[in-house]
């Protein structure tokens, strides 16, 4: 339940990322590299943000007390496209004043607002998970269903194929597959490529499990009854066998999404996934590798926290769904 | 003092507002060496009643809300954990419907029987005793059977092993919950024959749960018929079969096809067996009863002794 609520919130935020984020993901503030989070203070009835001045030394900033600028809602700002389609410039909050920037999570090494990049990156990281499992699970279910229903040579061939795919260590498979793609692809192509790669790894284990369930469901009397009526094989699989695997599939799906998200994170972290300047939680974390940087600028770990929350939420949701499915089948 | 006396047992599943009463005021006594059959259909509470004798029903979710179960005078429902473990096997033993499920598949048959011996008669926990028990239940070549795993045995053999396990501790009462329902009819005949013989040889009392009235005729001294959590008729077996008194018993007997019977249309009991939590008000059989009157649904009839040793829960039992 908790997991479900958190996830709905996360996805809604991702949907409106461009609007909620105070700045565009590419916008660089060259005066403010590694700027700490600008915590708002209370000034009268408004939330206000202080001005920061730069101190001598590397990337040292200090808030100037008393010099505050209130934060307004629905301010004009950088251009972006809502839902990727509608051009807009309104943002949820901001000061409208360049000298009083609002960086709730600070900036990164290029002076870009971490929160904005986090929100824009969420669109990519969260959607890859969902689209990925949809693809791989649908494919896995059909293959598994066919394999279990027909048995014999078909089954043997398909299962050996599955085992082949599953026996290759996922990480190396991901990297090798990535290497098979040409460099210099557009970001949309990179996005599609990542989904295809991750799906390719995921379908095999689903196919195996569905095949096992099909083997036992096939002997159920209601399946025999459908065959006795003269139902075609394909319809028997799709109408009778697969729907009875849903309770397992839904749970497995929710518990697998984190792996897809992490898959994208790994790819981007290694530099072979989502490329700069596009933001994704994975490539944002590449900046956070250095312990020096981490010690001084810990807000760069924000994507890690976001990943943590998301994965946890999916696990809670999956557990909850599994419990709900159990009682229904009693 | 009777071996077993169940007095007004009441058992709920769940508690508070959502409690579902599974056993509603059941009273039954069994004397030493007696065979009593508990007859009823699914959901009537017969299994739960039988399991309660050794307090085997997991509580929660079960809740004993009334009555007592006295084994040799001591109330089982108030016993401590250690006393309970002693009577389980020591005084009361169980055999169940699915022998394959009741035997642990990863242990050999011999060691499972020995386990029972170790708990109650440790001085006899040896191979010789196990072989004696296997012979007692009619398993051929018991010396080699010792080392078999349950899956290597047929259904009938598994049931015999379960009986051997139950008897190992020399119980005074054997509770058999539908022991032959899952077996073929020729194997069923073997097992019933075996139980009959063991009863005579060992002087054991048997509580036999079944839904098959034919078995009652073969095996029972007395019969209790249960419906929807209550006993509706209690009587010596021959009397009941010759002349049933409760409308449910009569209807049940009329609806079962008999061998060599005529091919006339069976008089089926209309409706469905009520499930726990959905018991009708008043007499629980009234909605399906051929002689039901309006007052039957107003109050639950009492179980009354209408002839010597014959109890019926129906004020209109005299009607044809």
């Amino acid at each position: 339940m908790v997991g479900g609520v958190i996830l709905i919130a996360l996805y809604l935020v991702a949907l409106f990322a461009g609007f909620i984020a105070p700045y565009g993901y590419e916008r660089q503030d060259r005066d403010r590299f590694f700027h700490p989070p600008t915590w708002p203070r209370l000034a009268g009835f408004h939330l206000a943000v202080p001005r920061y001045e730069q101190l001598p030394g590397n990337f040292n900033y200090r808030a100037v007390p008393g010099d505050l600028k209130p934060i307004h809602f629905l301010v004009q700002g950088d251009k972006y496209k809502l839902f990727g389609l509608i051009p807009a410039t309104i943002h949820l909050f901001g000061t409208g004043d360049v000298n009083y920037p609002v960086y709730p999570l600070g900036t990164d090494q290029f002076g870009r607002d971490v929160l904005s990049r986090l929100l824009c990156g969420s669109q990519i990281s969260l959607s890859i998970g969902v689209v990925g499992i949809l693809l791989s699970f649908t494919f896995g279910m059909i293959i598994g269903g066919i394999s279990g229903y027909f048995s014999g040579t078909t089954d043997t061939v398909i299962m050996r194929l599955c085992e082949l795919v599953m026996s290759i260590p996922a990480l190396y498979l991901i990297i090798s597959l990535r290497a098979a793609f040409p460099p210099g692809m557009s970001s949309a192509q990179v996005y599609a490529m990542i989904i295809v790669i991750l799906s390719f790894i995921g379908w095999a284990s689903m196919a195996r499990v569905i095949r096992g369930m099909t083997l036992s469901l096939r002997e159920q009397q209601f399946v025999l009854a459908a065959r006795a009526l003269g139902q075609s094989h394909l319809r028997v699989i799709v109408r009778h066998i697969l729907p009875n695997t849903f309770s397992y599939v839904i749970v497995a799906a929710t518990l697998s999404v984190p792996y897809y998200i992490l898959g994208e994170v790994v790819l981007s972290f290694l530099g072979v996934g989502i490329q700069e300047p596009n933001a994704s939680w994975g490539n944002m974390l590449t900046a956070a590798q250095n312990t020096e940087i981490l010690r001084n600028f810990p807000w760069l770990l924000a994507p890690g926290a976001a990943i943590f929350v998301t994965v946890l939420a999916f696990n809670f949701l999956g557990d909850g769904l599994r419990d709900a499915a159990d009682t229904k089948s009693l | 003092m009777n071996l077993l006396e169940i007095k007004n047992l009441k058992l709920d599943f769940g508690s508070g507002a959502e409690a579902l009463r599974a056993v509603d005021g059941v009273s039954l006594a069994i004397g030493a060496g007696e065979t009593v059959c508990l007859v009823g259909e699914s959901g009537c509470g017969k299994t739960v009643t039988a399991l309660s004798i050794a307090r085997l029903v997991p509580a929660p979710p079960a809740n004993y809300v009334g009555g007592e179960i006295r084994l040799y005078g001591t109330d089982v429902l108030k016993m401590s954990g250690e006393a309970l473990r002693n009577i389980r096997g020591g005084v009361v033993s169980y055999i169940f419907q699915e022998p394959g499920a009741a035997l642990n598949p990863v242990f050999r048959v011999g060691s499972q029987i020995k386990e029972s011996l170790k708990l109650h008669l440790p001085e006899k926990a040896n191979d010789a005793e196990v072989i004696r028990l296997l012979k007692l239940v009619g398993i051929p070549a018991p010396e080699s059977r010792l080392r078999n795993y349950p899956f290597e045995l047929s259904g009938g053999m598994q049931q015999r092993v379960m009986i051997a396990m139950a008897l190992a501790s020399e119980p005074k009462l054997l509770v058999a919950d539908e022991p032959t329902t899952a077996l073929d009819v020729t194997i069923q005949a073997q097992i019933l024959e075996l139980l009959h013989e063991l009863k005579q040889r060992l002087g054991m009392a048997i509580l036999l749960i079944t839904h098959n009235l034919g078995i009652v005729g073969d095996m029972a001294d007395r019969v209790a018929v249960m419906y929807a959590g209550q006993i509706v008729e209690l009587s010596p077996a021959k009397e009941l079969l010759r002349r049933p008194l409760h409308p449910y018993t009569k209807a049940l007997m009329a609806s079962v096809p008999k061998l060599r019977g005529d091919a006339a249309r069976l008089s089926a009991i209309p409706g469905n067996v009520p499930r726990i939590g959905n018991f009708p008000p008043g007499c629980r059989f009234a909605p399906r009863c051929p002689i039901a009157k309006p007052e039957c649904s107003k109050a639950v009839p009492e179980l009354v002794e209408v002839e010597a040793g014959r109890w019926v829960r129906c004020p209109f039992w005299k009607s044809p």
Partner: protein
Amino acid sequence: MPVLEITMSLLEVKNLKVHFPVKPGMFGRVHEFVKAVDDVSFSLEPGETLGLVGESGCGKTTLGRAIVRLVEPTAGSVLLDGEDITRMSGSLLRARRRTFQMIFQDPYGSLNPRMTVEQIVGEALDIHKLTDSSSARRKRIAELLQAVGLDPIYAQRYPHEFSGGQRQRIGIARALAVEPRLIICDEPVSALDVSVQAQIINLLRDLQQQRGIAYLFIAHDLAVVEHISRRVMVMYLGKIVETADAKTIIREPQHPYTQALISAVPEVDPETKRQRIVLPGDVPSPIHPPPGCPFHPRCPIAEDRCRTEFPSLRDTALEHRAACHLAGTKITAVAPAA
């Protein structure tokens, strides 16, 4: 001279064999078979009920499924109205499936838990395109539900909302939807409460009277089979060992196994204190049936001939056939070797 009009049997099974290979592992060759059905022949007339009894492992369920081609026969033929359906496939077979249907034993497993009653019964109509509009379809489904004693309001409910007896009725409605002339009933009442069994048995009889459907009634309960069938066949280890009129087979069983089966049935009538014939041992494995007569290891009257010579099913009396060298010998009570 009057000409004998020979009407064609509705169903004729000839030398049917269903042998399942015993899987030897990945590389071994198959040389062992489970002879589930071993050379079975019989016929069934329109509107007749033929009972098939036997214990577990005798092959009766496999026989039923082979006739409906849910299991492929290894050899032999199944003639429906004279046409051999074992040679058919594809749309021709599908069309023929309207003639024969099956109802199953497990009321909880024979209905798809994710489909409503309407979908379950409607599927039959849809496969064979029996209705041409959705209102006609709804009407037909309502008719079918009423025919089996269910209120049509229940059409939108799911199987788990019904009791065992009601589910069995839904299964019967599904089978009736295609208007079959033959229904194979595979233990249709064994899994039901005793008080409900009679309802379903009566329903099946009523439907037969109204629609002239023939039944192959497979069960292990002799009393039920005797009650509903006109003729009865007894199966043991894949073979038919006796077949006769229902009353006759109970009153004058000729095969020792039939006699043992009958005497093993617990009787409700307390007056009949008859002696039981208790067979020793267990049903042997269908992979290695004994030589000669398959029943001889358990038979109380087996002779040397029985161990070596296989007794074929032959006429022993009018309309009565048994597969036994010593058919007709009455066995008295036998207690098992202790």
